[in-house]
């Protein structure tokens, strides 16, 4: 344990700082207490999510209906399979990390190299998966209409199945050019326009008799309320304001803007941790390659970065439960 430290001449002197009640090195202790404080930061995020969810418990989006995509499986509903896969990737990279730490205890450099490389690979695959998840979430799925009060109206057919805007919106070209600052007014750029105007959606909805509107309100079974045809028409015509496709921090087609905000902040903050974890792993990996720890006769550095990596996995376990499952 003390191979990396100079002797200070205070060994065994209780009041000279010479004893180690926790029997752990300074670096490892500091990693533990950093993890403790970081865990509290994540708890703050997740508790804030819980607060908002309890506050809006009768209209919060249902996660299974939001995250239904799987790469290369177009049009097939696959709720949660993808996040479950991401969870496995991260758990497995944790296993390779702990195997690297174990190999380090036995001073087996080659094994440390192999297992750390696998861990870095797992981290990169996870980051890529998260990027894909964000892309799908931002791009949107069915599209919806936002009301003047900031609520979301979604469209369903007679069986209660979701219907995408492009399946019924009136088909004529009213597309307006997006205002960019290199054309028209040089000081103004507007955000991306949806594929359809609100007028097209309204007309298309009026023509398709089997369409209904689904509101955010949960009924007794915990499912979203579907309005009758007349109520749907009245709601759309009186309260509708504009079309939303996909999600950003202010609007999203899945429901409350808060839901998307928490999604971006919590998974983003976690993704940032994975990213910095990969970075630190790469640095330590090269240190292993150039024999730094062979010369030190201790692979404790691998153990410290391992602690951080397992913590990132630990946080994901909680994010998975509270964002996707509960």
């Amino acid at each position, binding site marked *: *344990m003390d191979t990396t430290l100079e002797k200070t001449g205070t060994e065994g002197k209780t009041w000279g700082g010479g004893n180690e*009640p*926790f*029997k*752990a090195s300074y670096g*490892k*202790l500091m990693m*533990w207490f950093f*993890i*403790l404080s970081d*865990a*509290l930061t994540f*708890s*703050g995020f997740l*508790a*804030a999510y*819980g*607060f*908002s*969810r*309890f*506050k809006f*418990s009768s209209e919060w989006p249902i996660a*299974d209906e939001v995250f239904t995509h799987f790469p290369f499986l177009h049009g097939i509903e696959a*709720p*949660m*399979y993808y996040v479950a896969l991401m969870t*496995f990737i991260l*758990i*497995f990279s*944790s*296993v390779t*990390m*702990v*195997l690297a730490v*174990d190999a380090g*205890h*036995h001073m087996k450099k080659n094994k440390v190299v192999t297992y750390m490389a696998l861990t870095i690979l797992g981290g990169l695959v996870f980051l890529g998966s998260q990027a894909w998840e964000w892309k799908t979430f931002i791009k949107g799925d069915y599209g919806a209409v936002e*009301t*003047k*009060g*900031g*609520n979301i109206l979604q469209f369903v057919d007679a069986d209660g199945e979701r219907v995408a805007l492009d399946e019924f919106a009136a088909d004529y070209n009213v597309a307006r050019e997006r205002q960019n600052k290199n054309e028209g007014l040089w000081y103004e750029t507007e955000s991306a326009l949806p594929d359809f105007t609100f007028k097209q959606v309204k007309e298309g909805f009026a023509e398709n008799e089997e369409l209904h509107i689904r509101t955010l309100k949960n009924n007794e079974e*915990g499912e979203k309320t579907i309005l009758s045809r007349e109520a749907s028409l009245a709601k759309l015509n009186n*309260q509708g304001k504009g079309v939303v496709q996909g999600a950003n921090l202010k609007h999203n087609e899945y429901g409350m803007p808060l839901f998307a905000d928490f999604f971006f902040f919590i998974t983003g903050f976690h993704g940032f941790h994975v990213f910095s974890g990969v970075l630190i792993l790469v640095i330590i990996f090269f240190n292993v390659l150039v024999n730094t720890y062979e010369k030190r006769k201790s692979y*404790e550095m691998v*153990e410290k970065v*391992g*602690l951080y990596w*397992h*913590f990132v*996995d*630990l946080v994901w*376990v*909680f994010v*998975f*439960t509270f964002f*996707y*499952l*509960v």
Partner: protein
Amino acid sequence: MTDHADTQDKSSATKRIWYVFSILSIVTIIEVALGIVKPAFMIENTLIDLHYLNWTFIILTIVKAYYITWAFMHMEHETAGLRRSVVWTSVFLIIYLIAILLIEGGYIQDVYSDSFIKWNL
């Protein structure tokens, strides 16, 4: 950490790692299966504002967190003082924070639904 590296032989340490990995995998599979099937009786019955399914998810998550911290992060080999200073501190503060925020959130929901505030169109 040198203590247990010396006392534990190689095979038993790796055996423990794979054992914990299998527990984590099985628990995750159970969670995903429950999340897809959503058994009716678990949703209909509630205990302190949360239905059984959500309690199951939370308990299974804590089981996973225990194994990750104890086995992967080697908490089981640390001294009792280190273990307590990290685990007790975080568990106490997190439970306190969550209890306060959830009670407050539930109260605001009650105000929205039962008082004179109109459902925002």
